[in-house]
């Protein structure tokens, strides 16, 4: 593998970029591995990476039905944050943010984690009270947070609607300075390269068609490229978790919806932070390339069609223009949709599936990208040791039976 550095880039520049080597191999599947990870998105690749790196388990295959990073990893709006209310959520997501903070160096791959802050606005006095509750919770949880007045919000984001006739005037905001955005593809590619280097087989165009079981225990998978055995199987198939569960013979507390994302033509830098306006249900940032990247709530119709639905597009784009009126004249370049698996409390499921040997990392809803490092780390820990990591324990499937839901929207009003 080529080590990446400014020096190497310079040298390759001089010799016509001819010395670069593949970022990952294209191996054929072997008949057996110690661990199979189904799903070559961020979470699956990160799981494989940490299995190899933290636990020394290298006979690992990541099976991806299409191209790696082609699901929600390559379709999201790239926000990274840990501005959570409940200690369980804050601990998990902040673990992720901390891994992100060192990820480019860890992977020797620039994932462009840009900590330009993540701001959640308040649009009434009641909102401000809730924002205060949220802000204090974050501080107590050890998360960096700032409470901003309306004037401070205006100074940072002059684009926001401060007109007298604004439908949802800005009363203030809570910001997490360490929040920001990352380059989504780079996260998948960086983990893939790192895992591959450590011996993991990343097998693309390999769709899992069935879960093989013996005496109730998962023992392998049937795929479009043959049968593959392993006594530990991890499923990281955001958008298809229920489909996989059906293959294995159980049901999950999940509904699948399309979540849409939008990007405008590039414009000169005009927005230097990530902004979420709950009253509009819309969040927005500007990419390094200059595109205004934004999104909103889920589509209203359960769906596995990876595309947008027009009424929700109208809601989200219309909301953005009302939120930032100057953007009315900016042009929409592209919009797309991904399928997200939404749990009743909008928190993820990490843990045993109920079928012995089959482990789950799913249900991240709209917020899986920011959790990739933590999700991979936790699943790797679980599969390597057979035990939950302390941080993942609260997110076990059993919470739906015990009633111990972790519903952020319940307390904070902040959508996932």
């Amino acid at each position, binding site marked *: 593998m080529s080590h990446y550095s400014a020096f190497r880039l310079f040298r390759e520049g001089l010799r016509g970029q001819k010395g670069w080597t593949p970022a990952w191999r294209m191996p054929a599947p072997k008949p057996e591995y110690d661990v199979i990870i189904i799903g070559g998105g961020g979470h699956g690749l990160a799981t494989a990476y940490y299995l190899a790196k933290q636990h020394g388990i290298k006979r690992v295959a990541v099976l991806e039905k299409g191209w790696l990073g082609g699901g929600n990893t390559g379709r999201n709006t790239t926000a990274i944050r840990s501005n959570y209310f409940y200690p369980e959520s804050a601990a998990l997501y902040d673990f992720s943010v901390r891994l992100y903070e060192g990820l480019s160096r860890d992977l020797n791959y620039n994932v462009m984690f840009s900590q330009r802050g993540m701001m959640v606005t308040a649009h009434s006095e009641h909102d401000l009270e809730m924002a205060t509750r949220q802000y204090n919770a974050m501080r107590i949880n050890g998360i960096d947070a700032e409470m901003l007045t309306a004037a401070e919000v205006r100074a940072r984001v002059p684009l926001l609607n401060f007109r007298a006739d604004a439908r949802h005037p800005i009363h203030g905001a809570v910001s997490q300075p360490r929040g920001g955005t990352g380059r989504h593809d780079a996260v998948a590619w960086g983990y893939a390269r790192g895992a591959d280097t450590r011996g993991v087989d990343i097998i693309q165009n390999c769709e899992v068609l069935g879960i093989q079981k013996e005496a109730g225990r998962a023992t392998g998978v049937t795929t479009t490229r043959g049968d593959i055995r392993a006594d530990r199987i991890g499923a990281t198939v955001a958008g298809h978790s229920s489909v996989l569960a059906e293959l294995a013979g159980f049901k999950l507390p999940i509904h*699948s919806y399309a979540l849409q994302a939008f990007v405008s033509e590039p414009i000169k830098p005009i927005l230097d932070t990530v902004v979420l306006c709950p009253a509009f249900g819309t969040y927005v940032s500007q990419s390094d390339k200059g595109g205004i990247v934004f999104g909103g709530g889920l589509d209203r119709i359960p769906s596995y069609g990876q595309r947008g639905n027009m009424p929700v597009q109208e809601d989200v784009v219309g909301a953005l223009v009302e939120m930032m009126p100057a953007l009315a004249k900016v042009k929409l370049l592209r919009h797309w949709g991904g399928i997200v698996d939404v749990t*009743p409390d909008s928190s993820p499921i990490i843990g045993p599936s109920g079928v012995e040997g089959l482990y789950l990392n799913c249900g991240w809803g709209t917020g899986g990208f920011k959790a990739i490092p933590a999700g991979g780390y936790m699943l790797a820990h679980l599969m390597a040791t057979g035990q939950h990591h302390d941080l993942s324990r609260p997110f076990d499937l059993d919470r739906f039976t015990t009633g111990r839901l972790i519903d952020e929207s319940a307390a904070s009003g902040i959508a996932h």
Partner: protein
Amino acid sequence: MQIFPCPFCGPRDEREFHFAGEAGKTRPDTTGEVSPDDWATYLHMHRNEKGRTREVWVHTPCAEMFIMERNSVTMEVLGTECLRAKS
């Protein structure tokens, strides 16, 4: 924009409808013993099919609930019927 046929009002804009859950769930008799697992299954577990689905929907203007079969990938509507006929 999808068009759903309300069994009472005919074809209408999707924005007039709300998804109300998968069809065929029966509430356990809570005057008797209901195990935690059975309750969790009733409350939270879904088929969430990819492809042909059978779901309960509400048409907001007329407030009627009905059953709709549709394809969750192509969005094709395969048919609707009154919930009442099935209850």
